[in-house]
């Protein structure tokens, strides 16, 4: 049975810590992992195995642990984590798991992220890593040294390790990060590490992602032991030899009083010696080799341990834990533990992430990294340096009921079934048996499986190979990587300068791109339909205003600004003339509508372009792309001023009167200020740009003011009993006039001609983006989906998105916009219908609701345009 020794280890015996596993309370010490504390308390058994329900015990000491998965309930919540990597804290509560975790909602713990740069990143603070960090620091480099354990120094720290770590940490330009695991290496010296940061408060661990860019990366992650397979090799009490040594050295825990040790290399005898010195009575050392070194032999002699050469364990025995083993020489050895090391296994999976191959070396029976990259190298035992020569020991003779992957409950027999089925690639065998797919990432099973396959097929292990290692090298929690990017931090929230006004008015908001836009402003418990109807009526019969600040604004300046816009947009803009505004449309190279907006000619070398709310960034990007890559000779500069301006659309028959009151110095009459003109004016004492554009067909003004003055102008307008309206009303008003919303009435497959906007496509000016594509056979087909109006008969409100069919039930198109129109006095809709322009007056059906619709011109309201001048 495992127990805590009275002396030794790196634990702080002055700081006992209480913890609970499966409802039972125990005590450990500061410096323990949960696993070492359990072992110290005599608890070796963990959750039963996932597939066969077999009893299992703690098998490893770190991330190689296949069995001891626990769910943490307090203080940190983790659905599934190996007990071997959990640093013990007071009050820790855990339950053991059978290989399957339990996901449950829990409050989010805080996560942070750090970006760091270094000349040298050293991964692993054992002997090799410390030396590398000292060398780099000595050369004046910025060094980051990370180590997964709470106390760096490697599995078995040397006596001077703590002092060396402290000395390094005290140097300028050196960052030592204990409790930090590098999870993956990526291109160009990029590494991701997770720090389990101790905040000093009990259990208040804060995880930090370190995104490290290093000129040079040194992997010094050491080795673990590789087991081999024999019958019943999964019983509790069977463990990796190196893990037993680590528990002894770090936690002063003796994992068994009378363990049999089985090995195939000389490197194990140092541990034999350490265990014997600590008081273990070893029944035997079972070594697969016929000869061992004299040093190894002298260790056994010194402690009077029987040494069985040329021998392997063939089977373990015991009920709920190992009680004896049978050996290949026919012996049966009573014991209370079995400690295995068939070979040392370099932990160099990180190297394989950046393309350094891991090659099988027969002499050491291990995968060893072969080579380095310009930024990454492996050193120390992880590189294979000083590995003891080992006999190839994979599987005891006739061991069919032996486990290869404890984590996935996969056996030698499973491998045989796969081979019998004809599978030969280790990747197929991995998928068939699931070996190596557990949370331990196949650390103890991957090469073992390859060795068994090779043995069975009579091929060299190197030819068989191992499945490719894929990042991360340790399981890493979703939340750690997600960081704080949830809720409002998932994507930036953009609010206009008038946002607080809208909130005060009780606006219901809509997400448009990253912007929050008021959708409608309900009054006194109004439903959306009621509010929108009221807002629409105000705009058509009185005066209403909308915050249009989210529309993108791009200043296009320079001597060639006009010709540039002629190439970007479908109609001619260079001839616009100062003081004028023109509606325009942008297409992609494929001729499909991508955006629309208005262009103001400020002066001969300055145009102000507006874009859709969602398209602003894409339009600017497209302009920059063409300007920089195709037309560098054009003298044009582009500046986004979306955030500099606030824009208020003032709409309705009374809009001129209201605005005139606030704009005493400028004559706003129809004669003095014509439609599609702009002028500078003082509005409520603010220097403004006012334009006479209308997206509703009503008399309307667009008032542009610097963002800081927006509230002042808005409030001044509000004093005149102007009804605020939102996007929904804006949509109704524009649909009544047959004006499209790009992205709603178009979907990336619609040309201006399909929309009935052929007038905006200039055939007189030269080339523009998309022009050639409009001449392709498919874009000239008469039966393309085309924009039409729909009137339901009898009147009914169609669903946006509703399908439309002809008399045969064939799909003709779909409803893009649908509203109940107060001005028209009935529901109206816009739709894309195949060959729609030629179907005026025809009837189509929305089959879901069985509604008949007459195809009509999309302009439902004031087709003569009488209302725009008031």
């Amino acid at each position, binding site marked *: 049975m495992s127990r805590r020794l009275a002396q030794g280890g790196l634990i702080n015996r002055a700081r006992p810590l209480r913890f609970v596993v499966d409802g039972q309370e125990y005590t450990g010490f500061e410096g323990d992992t949960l696993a070492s504390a359990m072992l110290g308390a005599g608890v070796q058994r963990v959750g039963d195995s996932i597939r066969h329900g077999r009893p299992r015990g703690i098998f490893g000491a770190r991330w190689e642990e296949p069995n001891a998965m626990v769910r943490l309930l307090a203080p940190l919540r983790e659905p599934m984590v190996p007990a071997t990597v959990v640093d013990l804290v007071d009050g820790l509560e855990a339950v053991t798991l059978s290989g399957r975790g339990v996901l449950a909602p829990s409050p989010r713990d805080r996560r942070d992220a750090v970006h760091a740069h270094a000349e040298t990143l050293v991964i692993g603070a054992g002997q090799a890593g410390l030396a590398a960090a000292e060398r780099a620091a000595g050369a004046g480099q910025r060094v980051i040294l990370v180590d997964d354990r709470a106390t760096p120094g490697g599995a078995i720290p040397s006596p001077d390790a703590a002092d060396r770590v402290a000395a390094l940490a005290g140097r300028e330009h050196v960052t030592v990060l204990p409790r930090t695991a590098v999870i993956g290496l990526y291109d160009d010296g990029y590494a991701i590490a997770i720090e389990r940061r101790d905040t000093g408060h009990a259990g208040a661990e804060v995880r930090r992602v370190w995104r490290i860019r290093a000129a040079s990366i040194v992997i010094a992650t050491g080795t673990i032991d590789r087991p081999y397979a024999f019958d019943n090799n999964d019983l509790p009490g069977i463990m990796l030899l190196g893990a037993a040594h680590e528990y002894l050295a770090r936690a002063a825990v003796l994992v068994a009083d009378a363990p049999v040790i089985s090995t195939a290399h000389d490197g194990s005898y140092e541990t034999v010696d350490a265990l014997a010195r600590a008081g273990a009575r070893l029944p035997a050392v079972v070594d697969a080799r016929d000869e061992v070194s004299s040093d190894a032999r002298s260790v056994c002699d010194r402690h009077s341990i029987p040494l069985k050469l040329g021998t392997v364990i063939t089977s373990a025995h015991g009920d709920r834990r190992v009680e004896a083993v049978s050996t290949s020489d026919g012996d049966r050895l009573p014991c209370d533990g079995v400690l295995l090391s068939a070979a040392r296994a370099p932990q160099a999976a990180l190297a394989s992430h950046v393309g350094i191959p891991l090659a099988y070396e027969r002499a050491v029976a291990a995968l060893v990294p072969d080579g380095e990259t310009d930024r990454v190298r492996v050193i120390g035992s992880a590189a294979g340096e000083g590995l003891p020569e080992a006999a190839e020991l994979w599987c005891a003779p006739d061991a069919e009921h032996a486990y290869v992957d404890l984590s996935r409950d996969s056996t030698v027999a499973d491998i045989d079934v796969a081979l019998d089925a004809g599978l030969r690639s280790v990747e197929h065998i991995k998928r068939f048996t699931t070996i190596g797919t557990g949370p331990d990432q196949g650390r103890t099973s991957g090469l073992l499986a390859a060795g068994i396959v090779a043995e069975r097929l009579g091929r060299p292990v190197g030819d068989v190979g191992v499945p490719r290692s894929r990042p991360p090298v340790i399981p890493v929690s979703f939340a750690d990587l997600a960081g704080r*990017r949830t809720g409002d931090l998932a994507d930036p929230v953009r609010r206009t300068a008038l946002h607080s006004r809208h909130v005060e008015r009780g606006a219901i908001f809509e997400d448009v791109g990253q912007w929050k836009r008021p959708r409608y402003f309900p009054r006194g418990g109004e439903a959306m339909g009621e509010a929108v109807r009221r807002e629409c009526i105000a705009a058509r019969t009185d005066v209403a205003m909308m915050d249009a600040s989210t529309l993108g604004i791009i200043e296009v300046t320079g001597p060639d600004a006009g010709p540039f816009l002629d190439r970007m947009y479908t109609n001619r803009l260079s001839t616009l003339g100062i003081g004028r505004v023109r509606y325009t449309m942008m297409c992609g190279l494929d001729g499909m509508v991508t955006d629309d907006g208005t262009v103001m000619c400020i002066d001969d070398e300055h145009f102000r372009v507006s874009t859709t709310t969602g398209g602003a960034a894409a339009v600017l990007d497209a302009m920059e792309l063409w300007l920089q890559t195709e037309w560098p000779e054009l003298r044009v500069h582009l500046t986004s001023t979306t955030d500099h301006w606030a824009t208020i659309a003032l709409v309705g028959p009374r809009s001129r009167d209201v605005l005139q009151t606030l704009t005493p110095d400028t004559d706003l009459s129809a004669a003095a200020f014509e439609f599609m003109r702009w002028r500078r004016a003082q509005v409520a004492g603010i220097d403004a740009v006012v334009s006479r554009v209308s997206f509703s067909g009503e008399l309307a003004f667009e008032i542009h003011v610097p963002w800081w003055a927006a509230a002042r102008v808005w409030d001044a307008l509000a004093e005149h009993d102007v009804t605020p309206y939102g996007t929904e009303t804006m949509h109704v008003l524009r649909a009544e006039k047959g004006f499209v919303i790009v992205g709603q009435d178009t979907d990336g497959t619609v040309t201006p001609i399909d929309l009935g906007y052929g007038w905006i496509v200039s055939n007189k000016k030269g080339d523009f983006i998309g022009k050639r594509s409009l001449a392709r056979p498919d874009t000239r087909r008469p039966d393309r989906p085309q924009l039409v109006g729909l009137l339901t008969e009898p009147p009914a409100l169609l669903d*946006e998105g509703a399908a439309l069919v002809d008399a045969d039930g064939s799909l003709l198109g779909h409803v893009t916009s649908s509203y109940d129109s107060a001005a028209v006095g009935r529901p109206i809709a816009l739709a894309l219908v195949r060959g729609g322009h030629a179907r005026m007056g025809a009837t189509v059906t929305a089959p879901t609701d069985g509604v008949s619709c007459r195809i009509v011109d999309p302009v439902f309201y004031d087709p003569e345009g009488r209302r725009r001048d008031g």
Partner: protein
Amino acid sequence: MGTRNASAGDGMPQLADRLWRSAEPAASYDAVIVGAGGHGLAAAYYLATEHGIRNLAVLEHGWLAGGNMARNTAIIRSNYLLEASAALYEHALQLWERMEDDLGQPVLFDQRGVLNLAHTLQEVRDGVRRVEANRLSGIDADWLTPDEVADVCPVVDVSDRLRYPVLGATYQPRAGIAKHDLVAWAYAKRLYDLGVDLIEGCEVTGIETAGGRVSGIATTRGRIATGTVGLAAAGRTSVLTEPLGLALPLQSHPLQALVSELFEPVHPTVVMSNAVHVYVSQAHKGELVLGAGVDGYNGYAQRGSFHVIEEQLAAAIELFPAFAGAHVLRTWAGVVDITPDASPIIDSTPIDGLFVNCGWGTGGFKATPAAGRLFAHTIATGSPHELSRPYVLDRFASGALIDEHGAAAVAH
């Protein structure tokens, strides 16, 4: 010892005692399929069973089904917007529904349904449009309110805590997932039994032509004479056709996915969300399987950028707060070839005897049986099947694109 099921590993059904054995290349074949992924295997299966072409080989440069077939998230659905897409994927779905009967092997096709979430009003419009179009095409489709979404998949957060709250979802109950390895192995076993040569570890180094038609192929294991070559090599198609002067409208990008450790069942369906760029299911054994969009630049390294993974996880726990504590066990990348309209190409080429099945982008797995069947038809008859007629190369000249990208904004 405890109870043992030596059939295979955890969560695997009983398979045939013998699946397939890799063959040695013969000197010549009537036809050669390049790429033993799902599409290549399925094409060979239909060539052998529906067109009587048995003197056939499927070449694979690595291990069978070790490319994108081993790297996808195994989602199967047919709720595409455009008629051409819906017809193709619905044909596939119907073949999936009878695949175990056809092939005689389990593939763990599990019709657990798929939710495509809408997070903006425009996504609602698009979703309704797709549901209505699907129904007209005879495809099962429903529009669900947020509460109904929560009924189908209780772990989805439908509250307004989200940056982009769930406003509804389309739901296709017949959609689902399958076990991709088993699919490949089922085809491989049938092909092996039919006498078709499956040749692993055999990389095509060149396609030989004489007088404007295919005469053979050069491989790392020698020359193979054949007059008919069907490319089903996914991301590597361009590399194979480029030396022939055949430039296809394809770009090869990394597509990443990841898997968690095993959990007790918590996620009963498949959830896809375009606005937050993630799709999630819980596989048969209990692991969460997550996919995201493609990486932003061409790459053949089967390696993606880590920030894509980070963003994907942020999106995942935004939608599924309970997943916060789950762990990434493995990430990986496939190489997908993407066409300008994100729809595939199944066609003959200007080179006689050379056929291409490519450009499946992120949608290849779900199409597997249909892609194979239609490609086999094109190879055997020299002209497209009715369902694959829209998927010809000529559409990039005429402009008759099948633009699901633009039209529905539903990737994958």
